[in-house]
């Protein structure tokens, strides 16, 4: 059994070490992207004309190949994980910014009017009303960003040992070992599915107030919430 997970020594890591590395390299950029996207999106919501140019910039950044990023970044961050993670964070913006903007904009006008009328200041209104109601849209964006990030990490193999499961794929091809290729591909896929599932779970947990199953009278969201405890 242990033979199945034996790794070539040049990777300097165990299989599960690689998986953990992969996960870290995939998720930290999305987190950073989210932290960056929140204020940017809020700015776009408040200053309406800013949204199209911001969207354009994120799209153009997304179109830059990661290799180009690496070339520029290597001078500053070397052959490190950071060099891989920075472009990934930038790429996540292309999904996250519109997701947050659309989510926040989807808050019904009368809900906002009610909040204002009740004496919510702008900050409180954003944190307590707009953001929670935008949560499903934001999480939907996060799902796409995370899954694509998980698959994109592999390009890190271009700059040495920073590609995690991507390096494993590379090794498999060099050493003609299908076992390593399978481990890499299946590992990446399982990781993506798991991350996605966790995010779905998170959404269910965070939004017990979402209509589910269409019927108004059902109390399932409550049951789900109870079960989740």
């Amino acid at each position: 059994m242990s033979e199945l997970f034996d790794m070539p020594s040049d990777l300097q890591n165990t299989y599960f070490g690689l998986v953990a590395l992969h996960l870290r390299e995939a998720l930290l950029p999305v987190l950073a992207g989210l932290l960056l996207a929140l204020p940017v999106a809020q700015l776009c919501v408040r200053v309406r004309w800013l949204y199209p140019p911001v969207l354009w910039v994120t799209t153009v950044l997304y179109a830059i190949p990661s290799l180009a990023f690496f070339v520029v970044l290597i001078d500053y961050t070397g052959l490190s994980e950071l060099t891989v993670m920075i472009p990934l964070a930038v790429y996540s913006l292309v999904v996250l910014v519109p997701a947050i903007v659309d989510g926040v904009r989807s808050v019904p006008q009368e809900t906002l009017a009610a909040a204002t009328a009740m004496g919510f200041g702008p900050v409180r209104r954003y944190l307590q009303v707009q953001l929670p109601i935008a949560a499903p849209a934001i999480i939907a964006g996060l799902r796409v960003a995370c899954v694509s990030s998980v698959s994109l990490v592999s390009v890190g193999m271009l700059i040495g040992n920073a590609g995690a499961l991507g390096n494993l794929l590379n090794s498999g091809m060099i050493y003609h070992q299908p076992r390593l290729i399978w481990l890499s591909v299946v590992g990446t896929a399982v990781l993506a599915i798991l991350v996605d599932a966790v995010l779905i779970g998170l959404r269910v947990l965070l939004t017990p107030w979402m209509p589910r199953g269409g019927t108004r009278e059902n109390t399932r969201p409550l049951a789900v919430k109870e079960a989740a405890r």
Partner: protein
Amino acid sequence: MFHAGRAPRLLRAGNEEERLRPLLVTPVEGKDLGGVLVRQWSDGVMALLCARAPERTRAVARSKATAIGVDPEVLWDDALDHVRAEPVELRTAAAGAPGPAITHVTGDGGFGTGHLLRLRELVAGPAPHGVLVGILTSPGLFVFHTVVRRLWAQAMVETFQKLGPDRSRLCPQRPGARGPKAGETCQPRRVFGVLIRIDSVTKRYPDGTVAVDRLSLEIPDRSITVLVGPSGCGKTTTLRMINRMVEPSEGTILIDGVDSRQQPVNTLRRSMGYVIQNAGLFQHRTILDNIATVPRMLGWGKEKSRARARELMERVGLDGALAKRYPYQLSGGQQQRVGVARALAADPPVLLMDEPFSAVDPVVRKGLQDELLRIQEELGKTIVFVTHDIDEAVKLGTMVAVMRTGGHLAQYAPPAELLSHPADAFVEDFLGADRGIRRLSFFSSAGLELLTEPIVAVDATAERIAAAGSGEAPYLLVTDPDGKPLGWGEPGDLTAGEIEAGRLLPYGRPFAAGTDSLRAALDCAVLSPTGWAVAVDAEGRVAGVVSQQVIGEAIRGAHAERSADGKVEQVAP
């Protein structure tokens, strides 16, 4: 204003009030003081004000008291319940302050009886000032309120009895104490009478649209004022200028005599409930948390806010089982109720409602309207209500402001006057074709002469039927042995002992004698196949019958009388 011999105004008589009456109206120092017990109160906000600015609160309470016709030297103030202040402080504050020594306004009757003890201490204690003439308590918002009030009244009675006729201990003359001098007549000062005053306000939107044009409106305290008019005439804009969601371009809005721009905007908004179409509930919060929003923001604490929210659910007719649900699990009508409860949560003195019931079906809407009238009756809020439905306006409004496109005021009048004397063709047109019929809602059926002679019981004797049939009525109304109506029959067809209820003509929908309006009476007569309307008493027993012709005469009489003295008296429509 305490005219000699003036009867105390008991806005709501209950046992304890009755018992207190003689005690409170005892002449003091040769002056006949009016005793007042007022239940209709709303002071949640006042209580909070008190925590921060006791002086101002006292002034507010006093001006309220003045507005309702008391000029008290002492008002007991229990608003301190919220801050658990000691009565000593209250006394100290009172000693230095001119005007009423102590205001006692309880907004918090249910939260323990601590204030009861404090009250005793104040009454029997060494140095309260002035003369007690008024007790202002909050509306029965709290579950234990009635109980506390009773206890409280008991304590008052005991204390007064203990003091006997000698009130010197209770009311030492304070230098500069207020109060009417002998022989002085006091006019009620309407300090609180006009709560919201819109003073030549104009709103010009940035794109140049003039939504409201030099509008002036005095919105009376503790009543429902309805803004009505065609779409786009600036109703919503006017409403939103009151809580400054829209800032006026010109003019001022005075709330309780103070420019609305003088206090922080969010403080202002939290002192006004706001209800809109589709409720605008927070979809991500449970019903309970939706209602508790403003109390939480005001720092009431979680438990107290939720307790308050539960109480309000009950008040607006929502099942407590809905508390943990989310808005999407409620029907439109239920959501609207939650919207009303949420607006009432912090007990704001003002309620702004923008077409709150327009998105629900007519049956639910009627229920909500009735509920609103009931709540208003109990709480005495100042409600500004926007609608484009003239029927709703006439039903709910104490005053109705008809607006026309361009943000002009077309007419501002009580509904009865609006229907009888529309200011111009626009208003007349807006009121619709059946304005005459609608106006009958404001005429009482109490003056109708009801005939009892053409009424026979189902087990009547032949002589009785013959006697009844000899009158002017072409039909006889048959009742069951209890006196409930069964139907009409022709005297010739009715045989003693063989009257079959199934073969009688239907009697239509009866009206409640005296309480229903002439409109209801006329409606009954029109619907009845015999042209006669059936009047019933509260138990549903026949009080008498009346013909269309007699109703018509009554209508003409009422019109003549109304135009003669121009008086407007409202009857539930």
